[in-house]
C-alpha cells in the first residue's frame, strides 16, 4: 500500500514538473523574455564571458544592433594610456532602457552595460580599458530595438598588460 501511495505521489510530482517544463517550452519566442526580464537586476554573466562583440550583444540582448547617427559617442581619437580611456555617450532616441560599451579587440569585448529606467536620461560617461587600438562600440536599447555607434580609438600603450 505504501508502495502505491508513494508512486501516486511521485506521479503527481512528475506531472507537476512536466507541466512546468511545458509552460517553459510553450512559447519558444517568449522563452528568452523572462530571462531578459530577470536580467534586469541579474548580472549578465554569459555576456561578460563572450570574446567577440557580436556574441556579447547577442548574449545580452538576444538581437543585433543597427548603426544610428542618433547615438553620439564622445571618445578620444588617440588614447595615450589604454588603461584609462574616457568615453561617454548620449542619444536623442526615446524610451532608452539600456546602454552598453564594447571594445572589439579586448579579450572580453563587453566592458560595461548600464540599465536606464524611465526618468533617467540616456547619457552615460565612464572610463574603460583598451588592450590595443580598436573599435569602440556603443549599443543603445531604445523602444525594444538596438542602435549602435562605432569609433576607432588609437591606443599608444595598451591597458590590459599587453
Amino acid at each position, binding site marked *: 500500500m505504501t508502495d502505491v501511495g508513494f508512486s501516486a505521489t511521485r506521479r503527481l510530482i512528475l506531472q507537476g514538473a512536466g507541466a512546468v517544463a511545458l509552460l517553459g517550452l510553450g512559447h519558444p519566442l517568449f522563452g528568452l523574455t523572462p530571462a531578459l526580464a530577470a536580467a534586469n537586476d541579474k548580472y549578465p554573466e554569459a555576456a*561578460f564571458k563572450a570574446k567577440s562583440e557580436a556574441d556579447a550583444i547577442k548574449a545580452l540582448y538576444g538581437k543585433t544592433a543597427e548603426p544610428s547617427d542618433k547615438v553620439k559617442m564622445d571618445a578620444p581619437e588617440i588614447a595615450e594610456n589604454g588603461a*584609462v*580611456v574616457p568615453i561617454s555617450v548620449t542619444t536623442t532616441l526615446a524610451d532608452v532602457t539600456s546602454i552598453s560599451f564594447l571594445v572589439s579587440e579586448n579579450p572580453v569585448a563587453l566592458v*560595461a552595460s548600464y540599465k536606464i529606467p524611465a*526618468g*533617467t*536620461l540616456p547619457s552615460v560617461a565612464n572610463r*574603460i580599458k583598451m588592450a590595443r587600438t580598436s573599435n569602440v562600440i556603443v549599443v543603445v536599447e531604445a523602444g525594444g530595438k538596438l542602435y549602435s555607434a562605432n569609433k576607432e580609438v588609437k591606443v599608444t600603450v595598451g591597458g590590459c*598588460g599587453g
Partner: protein
Amino acid sequence: MASTIRVRATSSGETTEVQALIQHPMDSGFVKDAKGEIIPPHFIQQLTFEYDGKNVFTADWGGGVSKDPYVKFVFKGAKKGDELKISWVDNKGATDTTTAKIQ
C-alpha cells in the same frame, strides 16, 4: 574603514547629475604581475544607485572598466537634500554601500 565610494550628486532643479568614483583594483584577470604570474580577476560586477526605494541607474561591469572606476549619469525627480543610496558587489562577493545627500 572609510567608504570606497565617493559620490557627488548635484541637483539643478529638474535633474540631478550624479558622479561616482569608487576605489577598486578592477583586475581583469588578463594582466600579469612583475613575476609573470596572472593577477586573478577582481572587479566590481554590479553598481546600483537607488533613490526613493527605486533603482535609478544600474551598472553591470566587466574587467574592462578602468581601475578606480568613474561613472556619471543624470536622472529626474529628486530634490536637494534627498538621499541617494549607492552600493556595489564584486566578483568575490565583497560589497560596499553608502548614502549621499543631493546638493
